[in-house]
């Protein structure tokens, strides 16, 4: 069987799978934004029907969002299966083929988790389900990057830059912080308590809100949520404050990443462009976060906040991957030229290899 690392259609298919996974996260965000996670009461059947034969007449209210989520998830599962098989048959890199297999089992596990959340009636599973969704998106996005012609050129031609260690660590740390931020966000969404703090940039009119029992009782007496029934707790208020502080930290770190990359690698470097896009995404994300509060958690705004958050995580992950891989390529080039007395390993750009 002929295997190659150059499969343009496989790459396009991987991109499609990654986009579908991002869309699936968006539909999942709509499900939680509309408090519709339990609108279809069973699994793997849908209100007793085969999922694919569920009557359209019953796609009402929250059922529409939850059932759509299941159908899109099935589609992503199918795409991932095809991608894994395609990679296995056509890609020459063993480790990449194994990543495809991991993606396949990941999507199956994710589907089962979603089903168990319905059957076992556990919100905690929902938080894990949301977190795993983000990690799955990162994985298929990495597959899309690694199967791309750009990546082939990057590897084959030995890139002409090495991202300095400090920046690499900054990228990775910030990406992990974004993942932590997404877990906090998922926890907030699965509390079913709406907005635990209804104002922004202040919190209950103060820089740091009063979370004493008397104050929390007063907040609950005055909040009239239409769809989020649970009373808020001091923990939920503190969780949202942590989310805000983390957001501020992430914004600062991503700004530092973009600035540092531009300063060290120059404006035309692909890592610089990606870091700039990352900063733009985080900027949008901060605005969406504020808008989520100002709109009293309108479903479309809150869902956009979820989607851009996922895109921010993916961008950070891909930037980290490129940064760490650039070092390996840079070192290989450096090793090739080490005999030349006029050249030495340097963090500054090397001339492009012939």
């Amino acid at each position, binding site marked *: 069987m002929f295997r190659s690392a150059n499969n343009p259609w496989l790459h396009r298919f991987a991109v499609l799978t990654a986009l579908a996974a991002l869309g699936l996260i968006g539909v999942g965000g709509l499900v939680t934004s*509309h*408090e*519709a*996670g*339990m*609108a*279809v*009461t069973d699994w793997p059947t849908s*209100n*007793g029907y085969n999922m694919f034969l569920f009557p359209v007449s*019953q796609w*009402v*209210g*929250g*059922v529409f969002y*939850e059932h759509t989520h299941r159908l899109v998830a099935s589609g992503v599962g199918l795409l991932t299966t095809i991608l894994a098989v395609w990679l296995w048959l056509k890609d020459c890199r063993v480790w990449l083929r194994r990543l495809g297999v991991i993606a396949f089992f990941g999507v199956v596990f994710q589907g089962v988790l979603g089903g168990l959340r*319905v059957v076992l*009636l556990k919100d905690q599973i929902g938080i894990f389900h949301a977190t795993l969704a983000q990690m799955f998106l990162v994985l298929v996005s990495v597959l899309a990057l690694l199967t791309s012609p750009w990546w082939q050129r990057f590897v084959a031609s030995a890139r002409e830059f090495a991202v300095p260690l400090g920046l690499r660590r900054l990228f990775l740390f910030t990406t992990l912080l974004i993942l932590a931020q997404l877990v906090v966000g998922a926890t907030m969404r699965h509390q079913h308590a709406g907005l635990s703090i209804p104002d922004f940039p202040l919190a209950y009119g103060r820089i740091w809100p009063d979370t004493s029992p*008397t104050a929390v*009782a*007063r907040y*609950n*007496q*005055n909040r*009239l949520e*239409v*769809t989020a*029934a649970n009373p808020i707790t001091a923990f939920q208020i503190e969780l949202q404050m942590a989310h805000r502080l983390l957001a501020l930290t992430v914004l600062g770190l991503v700004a530092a990443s973009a600035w540092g990359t531009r300063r060290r690698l120059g404006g035309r470097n692909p890592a610089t462009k990606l870091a700039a896009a990352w900063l733009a995404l985080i900027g949008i994300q901060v605005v969406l976060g504020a808008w989520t509060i100002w709109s009293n958690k309108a479903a479309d705004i809150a869902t956009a906040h979820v989607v851009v958050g996922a895109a921010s995580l993916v961008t950070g992950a891909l930037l980290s991957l490129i940064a760490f891989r650039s070092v390996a390529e840079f070192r290989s080039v450096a090793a090739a030229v080490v005999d030349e007395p006029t050249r030495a390993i340097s963090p500054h750009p090397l001339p492009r290899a012939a």
Partner: protein
Amino acid sequence: MAPPSGGGVGFLIQVKGNPGAEGGRFACFAEECYSCPVSQLIERLNMKLTLGVSGVLAALATWNLALAADITGTVTLKGTPPPEVEITPLKNDPTCGPLHKDVPKTRFYVVGPKGELADVVVSLKGITGKSTGASVAPLVIDQKGCEYLPYVAAVQTGQKIDVKNSDPVMHNVHDTPTASGNKERNQAMLPGGPDLTFTFDAPEEFLRFKCDVHPWMFAYVSVFDSPYFAVTGADGSFKIANVPPGKYTLEARHRKAGTVTKEIEVTDNGAQADLVLELKQ
């Protein structure tokens, strides 16, 4: 005449409910008196004993009821609650919206002109193990206009809760208890479908029922391990019936306004207790 069938229980029924049959009992003894075995005599004595105990118990129950009295009162709210908000998702819903002429509003604070507060659960605190829930009529909760009616209710442990669907719309009924021993369920309910029945074994305050198809639909049911509770009506009044005399702690609990307690003494004439819930400033 043929002897009556059955044992003491059969005789007991005849004695209590049918004078004609009572004649049959004597006929039996008249015919078989001299040939009655000893066991039959013992049975007769046993029957008399049973009759006697039953009578005493009935008398005690009547005496106990005679001693029991009602607690009545009113719950009012002090302070101005936030204005209720329109349930716009309901009005915008293509299946539920047409069931209402106006946009329905939330029902957090149902307050009368003088502060009378509805949907307050009033109960005697600390009384357990007195539930008669298995023998009382079920609570009926209806889904009408894509809302639960009633919004707040109370039952005893073991008492049935029948949930019906009067809407031409599919709902799902999802109870979300927090007390250990109460089971969470989530069931779809088609228009015209059979009622769903729930029971709960553990006491719990404001056990929530929700519909995830229509996420603005909620009902709250407090579960008590005794029959001594009531839910205030639109005029804020309540009545807890047949409470034995004694000293109690009366508790009024509202989902939003909080909780207030009052020490009371129930005499043969009952007790009157008005309670005030205050909004925190």
